[in-house]
C-alpha cells in the first residue's frame, strides 16, 4: 500500500489544545449554570466567558514571552519576580498627594501616568536584557541565569516598596486593568495588541525562522550565519517586557502592589500553558496561537473549579495531573505505543 500523505486539520498543532478547550467549555455548558450567559450592563459585556478572557490576560502575556524563550531552547523562571518588580515600581512611581480642587479632594501623582508607564516598562525591559545577556553572551544555562533574578527579584521589589503593600490611588491608571473599551475589558485589547505585534514580528520578519533554527540546533544555526546570541537576547527581552506589562495590568486590576505575593509561582503556570499547547519543551518549532489556547485552558479550569466551590488550592493537584498526562503523551515511548495500536487496528 502506498503511504498516503495525510494533512488534515488534526495535524495542526493548535487543533488538540482547541479540542481540549472545547471539551472544557462543553463540560461547563452542561454542568455550570449560566456559563454561556452574556449580559449587557451599562454598555459593558458581562459573563463567565468574558471573565475567563479578562482573568487569563496576565497569564497570556507571560505565555507569549515564555513561548519565545522556550522556543529558543531556554527557559525564563524569573517572570513572576519581574512582575513583582514592575508592580512595585509603578505603584511607587504613581504615589502622590491629595490636592484640594474646588472643594473636592483629587489625587495628583508626582509624575505623569505616561512617564510612569514608560519608566516601568523600561525597567522590565532592562531586567529581560539582563537575563538575555547572561544566557547569550556569558553562556550561562537559562535556568541558572534566570534563577538569579528569581531569587533576587522579590528582594528588589520589597526594597522598592520598603517591604510594604502599596495602595495605588491613581484613577486613570485603573482603566488599564478595570476599564472597558467597546463593551469589553481593556485588558483583552492589551493582550490582543501584544499578541498581534509578536505574531507580525515572528511571521513577517525572518526572526521567527531564525528563532526556530536556534531552538532546533544552536550550532547549525551559528554555522549558517545566524546571530544566535542576538536572537536569544531578543527572546528574553520580550519575555521581560511582557512580564512588565503583566505586572502593570495586575497592579491596575487589584489597585495595589504586594511585592511578596504578586506573580508568585506564575512562571510555572506560564510554562504549563506552553506545554499544554503541545509545544516542545526542548525548543524549536512553536505555535504562539496554541500557547494562547493553553493559557485559556488553564484559566477555564480555574474558573470551573471556583464555580464548583472546590478549594482553590486543589487547582495545584489538577495542574500536576495535566502536566503529567500532557508530557507523557508527548514522549516518544507513548507515541510509539499509539502508533503500534493503530497499526494493529489497521491489520485487523
Amino acid at each position, binding site marked *: 500500500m502506498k503511504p498516503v500523505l495525510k494533512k488534515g486539520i488534526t495535524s495542526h498543532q493548535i487543533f488538540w489544545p482547541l479540542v481540549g478547550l472545547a471539551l472544557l467549555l462543553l463540560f461547563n455548558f452542561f454542568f455550570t449554570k449560566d456559563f454561556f450567559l452574556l449580559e449587557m450592563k451599562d454598555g459593558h459585556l458581562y459573563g463567565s466567558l468574558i471573565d475567563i478572557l479578562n482573568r487569563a490576560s496576565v497569564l497570556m502575556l507571560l505565555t507569549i514571552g515564555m513561548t519565545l524563550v522556550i522556543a529558543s531552547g531556554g527557559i525564563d523562571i524569573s517572570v513572576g519576580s519581574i512582575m513583582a518588580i514592575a508592580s512595585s515600581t509603578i505603584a511607587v512611581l504613581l504615589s502622590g498627594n491629595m490636592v484640594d480642587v474646588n472643594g473636592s479632594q483629587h489625587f495628583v501623582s508626582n509624575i505623569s501616568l505616561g512617564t510612569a508607564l514608560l519608566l516601568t516598562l523600561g525597567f522590565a525591559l532592562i531586567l529581560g536584557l539582563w537575563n538575555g545577556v547572561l544566557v547569550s553572551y556569558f553562556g550561562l544555562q537559562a535556568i541558572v541565569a534566570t534563577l538569579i533574578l528569581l531569587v533576587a527579584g522579590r528582594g528588589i521589589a520589597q*526594597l522598592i516598596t520598603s517591604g510594604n503593600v502599596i495602595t495605588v490611588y491613581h484613577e486613570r491608571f485603573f482603566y488599564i486593568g478595570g476599564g472597558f473599551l467597546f463593551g469589553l475589558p481593556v485588558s483583552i485589547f492589551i493582550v490582543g495588541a501584544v499578541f498581534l505585534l509578536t505574531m507580525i514580528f515572528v511571521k513577517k520578519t525572518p526572526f521567527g525562522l531564525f528563532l526556530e533554527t536556534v531552538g532546533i540546533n544552536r550550532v547549525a544555526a551559528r554555522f549558517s550565519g545566524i546571530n544566535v546570541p542576538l536572537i536569544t537576547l531578543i527572546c528574553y527581552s520580550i519575555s521581560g517586557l511582557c512580564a512588565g506589562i503583566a505586572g502593570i495590568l495586575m497592579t491596575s486590576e487589584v489597585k495595589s502592589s504586594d511585592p511578596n505575593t504578586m506573580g508568585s509561582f506564575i512562571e510555572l503556570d506560564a510554562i504549563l500553558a506552553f506545554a499544554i499547547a503541545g509545544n516542545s519543551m526542548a525548543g524549536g518549532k512553536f505555535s504562539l496561537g496554541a500557547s494562547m489556547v493553553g493559557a485559556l485552558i488553564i484559566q477555564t479550569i480555574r474558573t470551573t473549579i471556583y464555580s464548583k466551590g472546590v478549594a482553590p488550592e486543589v487547582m*495545584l493537584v489538577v495542574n500536576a495531573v495535566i502536566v503529567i498526562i500532557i508530557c507523557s503523551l*508527548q514522549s516518544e515511548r507513548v507515541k510509539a505505543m499509539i502508533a503500534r495500536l493503530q497499526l494493529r487496528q489497521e491489520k485487523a
Partner: protein
Amino acid sequence: MMKIPIKSKYTSVVITIGIFVALVVIGSFVYDNFWGAQNLLDLLIDNSFLIIVALGETLVIISGGIDLSVGSMIAFVSMIAAYLLTTLHCNPILVILIALGAGGVVGLLHGILITYFNVQPFIATLAGMFLTRGLSYVISTDTISISNPLFVAISEYRIPFLFDSFLSIGVIITLFMLLVFIYIAHYTRFGRSIYAIGSNEQSARLMGLPVNRTKVLVYVLSGFTSSIGGLVFCFYMLSGYGSHATGLELDAIAGTVVGGTLMTGGVGFVVGTVFGVLIEGIIQTFINFQGNLNSWWTRIAIAVLLLIFIAVQRILMAKREQKKSVKRVEAIERAASAD
C-alpha cells in the same frame, strides 16, 4: 606567584569553605557575641532540614537533572505527619514510615517520568511540586499542630556539647545523612555512575553503566531524603501546613550551586553543598545581627553570591577547556613531527 597545591576539581569547594570561614571570622570581629559555640551550632540547628534536602538535590544536579519538589515535599510530609498524628492518632513510628514511603513514591514517579517518558526533569519535578503541595492542601488548608509525645520529646531533646552548648536530634540526623551521602557519592558504583551520567549520558550508556536504573534511583533517593528533611522540619516546627517551606527548593539549589556543584552536571561535592547552605544561613544571621537591615537583603545577598559563584565557575571551566584544546593541539603537532 605561588601555586596552590590543590587539584583543580577541588577549587570550587575550597573557595566555598574559605568564604564560610572568612564570613565567620568577619562576623566575630564585627558583631559582639557572634563568636560562640552555640551561635555556630544554631546555624546547623536552624538549617538542618535545608542541608538534608540539599544533599539529595546535589546528587540529582550532579546527575544532570534538577528536583524542584524538595520544598513542597517538606510541606507534604509535615502535613501527613500532623494529620495522622493529631487527627487520626496513629502510632508515631508508623507515621514516620508512611512519611518516608511517600517521599520515595513521589521520587519514583519523577524518576519514571524522566527516564522512561523522557519528560524534562524541570517539568516532571514541577508536576511533583504541584502535586505534593496540592495534596497537602487537600488534607487541610489550615495549620495542624503536632502534640504527639514522641515527636515533642524528639523536638525538645538537647544533646550537650562542648562549651555548654547543645545540639538537636535534627543535627545528628543531618550529620548522619552527610556521612551516608559522602559514602554514596564517592564509595559506591551508584555514586560513580551518577557522576558519569552527569558528565555525558551517552558515554555512560556506551560504557555499559545502568543509566536508566541510576537515574530513577537518584530521584527516589532525593524524594526519600526530602521526606527525611520533612520529618526533621516537623521536629523543628511541630506543625503541619501546606505553605511550609515555600521556595525552599530555591535555597537548596542556590546552596548547591554556591557549594561548587555545576548545574550542567558531572561536577560537585556533597560537602560543598553543606557549606553552601551554611553560607546562606550565615548571611541570614548577619542580617539578624545587624538589626537595621531588612529581611529582603538576605535574598539579594544570596542572589549576588550566586552570580559571583556562577561567574567563577564559568571562568574556571573556560580555562580548563582552553588548557584541553592547547594540549590537543600539542598532541597533534607531536604526532605530525613524529611522522
